[in-house]
């Protein structure tokens, strides 16, 4: 499917989505609450069939956090980038573990580094850092005088 078709299809699913076609792939921006239904449709719709979630990225935009999902369909080969926007004070988003199993570890990573809480995640714990670590190190306002030696 081309970008246009994808866009048309997605507007069907979620009329409020904002698209950005500048890059290589179609970018879709949505609110966090809209993510789970959209994800299900992306995975289950036979035409789209996005079965391969290859990257989950948390981004701290200072005003809000986003989670960027890169999806590909093995069968059709098309790629889509979904950006779900979360509130910074209370970053919560539904997990997609059941849809893409790889999300489990990836979401834990995002939780670990950004503090984004994935609702209904089976095992949301620190992944890389020790369990008693304080703060979310990849957020822009993270300070740690002891460990981070500034250049």
């Amino acid at each position, binding site marked *: 499917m081309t970008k246009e078709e994808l866009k048309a299809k997605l507007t069907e699913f979620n009329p409020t989505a904002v698209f950005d076609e500048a890059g290589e792939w179609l970018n879709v921006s949505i609110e966090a609450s809209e993510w789970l239904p959209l994800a299900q449709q992306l995975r289950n719709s036979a035409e789209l069939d996005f079965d391969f979630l290859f990257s989950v990225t948390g981004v701290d935009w200072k005003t809000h956090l986003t989670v960027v999902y890169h999806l590909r369909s093995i069968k059709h080969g098309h790629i889509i980038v979904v950006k779900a926007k979360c509130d910074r004070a209370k970053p919560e988003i539904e997990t997609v573990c059941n849809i893409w199993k790889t999300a489990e570890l990836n979401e834990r990573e995002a939780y670990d580094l950004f503090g984004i809480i994935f609702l209904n995640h089976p095992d949301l714990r620190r992944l890389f850092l*020790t369990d008693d670590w304080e703060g979310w*190190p990849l957020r822009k306002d993270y300070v740690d005088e002891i*460990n981070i030696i500034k250049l």
Partner: protein
Amino acid sequence: MEDNKTITQFPGSVHPAPGGGILVSKFDDVLNWARSNSLWPLVFGTSCCAIEMMSAAGAKYDWSRFGFEVARATPRQADVIIIAGTIVNKMAPVLKRLYDQMPDPKYVVAMGACSISGGPFFYNTYSVVKGADHIIPVDVYIPGCPPRPEALIHALLTLQEKIKAGGTREKIYLEEVKKP
């Protein structure tokens, strides 16, 4: 202009290297000969440097010529930890425990920039220990990223010289790691 002295110093705290200064007798010479020629390393490679450590074990560099090849999986039977790779905060207690669990006499070789000082990950990182000697006393440092296998062998030879000259190490107690 800043004081020249402080600039040439390393930007972090450095522990004095222990060892040396013990009177050795003929008998000790023999024991030290045995110790120095039978350094069994603990399998402890954490990252990239471990590959060069494996190269040193490999056919071309072959550290078995010096009797170092008996790499032990358990610290109980090892004599020397070759810290090959970055030590991060989460790993630090593990390293400390492994070191503690080794029977005396024991030695430590810090291989690569990471284990000397945090190396490539010294600045702007939140999880890297800035030098393995913050955790356990280190006998020999090898700079490089990663050091060549020959450099590792050279370091082990350097360690041998230290053992031959120094006898058993004096115990030093180090501050606990900052983050557990």
